[in-house]
């Protein structure tokens, strides 16, 4: 049993290991056509080549700005809408909720062309606004937070109302603090999803200086004279390592948010 499990782990991790191993090999070893797990001669040359070939720091900053912007925007719009749908006596709130949740059934490919058209008409191609704003809302986030807010004891909200607090104060002083775990969990998911996304930045960020990591990385592929495999693996390692380290440090928390996100649906 351990044998099977270890085999599964080895197969899953191998691509990442091979990426690192290639990244520290000199070209003669990369193209030797023999199978060697570790380099015979260790080199950091590929990392230097990667840093000079693409503006990797700039890509990193772009990824960070977009992921952070989308996460904050999605969290705020989700909290507000989920609060209204879960706890406020507004007419037709179930219709509103359905309006948001139904968007989860619409694949991105269906809305992609008109959204691209809109963003390009507003001259927002190659801007952070164009990368962030069209993704500022998520039916999934509203769904998750409404579930969480509804399980809040009624007496808590009631007590705040009787204290004379208005709905805005009640939201930030009672509802949000009581649900901080759920909010943190969905925010982690928003961040990971945006950090890793490819299609929307591929369309919007055509300018080199505005690309995100996953998009900018592809510059190494299919260059004239062939793909630069060594530098590509070095760049991939640099792009993946921060995410992987963050994951290993916060693994318990990240795994939990993925699981609750999955099972509550």
């Amino acid at each position: 049993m351990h044998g099977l499990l270890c085999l599964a782990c080895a197969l899953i991790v191998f691509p990442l290991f091979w990426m690192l191993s290639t990244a520290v090999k000199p070209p003669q070893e990369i193209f030797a056509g023999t199978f060697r797990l570790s380099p015979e001669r260790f080199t950091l040359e590929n990392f230097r080549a990667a840093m000079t070939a693409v503006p990797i720091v700039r890509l990193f900053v772009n990824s960070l700005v977009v992921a952070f912007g989308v996460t904050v925007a999605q969290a705020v719009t989700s909290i507000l809408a989920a609060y209204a749908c879960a706890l406020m006596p507004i007419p037709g709130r179930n219709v509103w909720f359905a309006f948001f949740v139904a968007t989860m059934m619409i694949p991105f490919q269906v809305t992609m062309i008109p959204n691209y058209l809109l963003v390009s008409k507003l001259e927002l191609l190659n801007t952070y606004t164009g990368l962030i704003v069209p993704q500022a809302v998520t039916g999934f986030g509203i769904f998750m937070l409404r579930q969480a807010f509804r399980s809040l004891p009624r007496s808590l909200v009631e007590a705040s109302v009787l204290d004379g607090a208005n709905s805005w104060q009640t939201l930030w002083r009672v509802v949000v603090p009581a649900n901080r775990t759920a909010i943190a969990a969905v925010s982690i998911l928003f961040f990971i999803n945006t950090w890793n996304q490819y299609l929307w930045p591929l369309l919007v960020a055509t300018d080199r200086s505005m690309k995100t990591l996953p998009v900018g990385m592809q510059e190494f592929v299919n260059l004239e004279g062939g793909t630069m495999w060594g530098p590509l693996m070095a760049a991939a390692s640099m792009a993946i390592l921060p995410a992987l380290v963050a994951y290993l440090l916060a693994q318990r928390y990240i795994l939990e948010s993925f699981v609750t996100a999955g099972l509550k649906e």
Partner: protein
Amino acid sequence: MPFARAQVARARWRRSAVLTGTLYLMPAALLTGVFIYWPLVASLVLSFHEWNLVSPTWTPVGWQNYIELFASRPFWLAVVNTGKAAAALTLLAVLIPMALAAMVLRVSPQIRNLYRVVLFSPSVISMAIACAVWLWIYHPLYGVLNTVLRLVGIEGPRWLSSGDWAIWGIINVTVWKSLGYNFVLFIAGLLMIPSEMQEAARVDGATEWQAFRHVTFPLLAPTTLFVFLTTFILAPQNLFVPTQILTHGGPNEASNNLGYLVYQLGFEYFRAGYASAAAMVTFLLFLGLTALQFYLAERRIHYES
């Protein structure tokens, strides 16, 4: 008079809540309208037009885009490939994680967590970057896959430029990426099943396999349904990135699929109307199939419980 004061506070909250509550809905509602529902309608309208993404006018063409789509070879190849991928994914990325999860529950919790962390790791990294790595692994001459095969005397194919293998190269990467997430969901599902149930079965003389088949598996049905449905629904979307990076739908459309076709028609052939028709067909097809599966599965689960 605390009671009267409470009444006043409640009435005040109720009166103001209608207005403020609607106000709180507005940011999400406006954004959803502008960036999801409007584009959905625009896509539908656009699918009855011919437009090259730059000309100032859309030319109305009636059902022409749909007629052309249903008569085109790439579309049917894309349908077949998406079907293959959805079938392979729902089989491999559901059964393997289920088996692994059932196994991992029998080891000690610390080691279990180690397996969990390792198997889940592909889920947190970017598919686009992972695909760059797989591109190198699949390299026909220097890629590690063919190097290892050569060691055991097999000359591997050109994985991504062979018409027979390209779609499987894509499916393999997608399975690799989604396996860990499903595995973690199965562990959570299995942990919710009371262990006395399995023990009772063992006391009654059931073998391990019988206990799993007749006790665990039926009780796990809601998790299985969830994992199955999400894997299926997301299949066309999850195929996009590996297709765009590994094969561009080639060679000669052999690895094209519905997730990639829309992008290809729109942003590589600049036929926005035609691409929108393909998007609408994909959307309705998967909506219909999902509803059907849901209906069938719900019935089955009700019968069993």
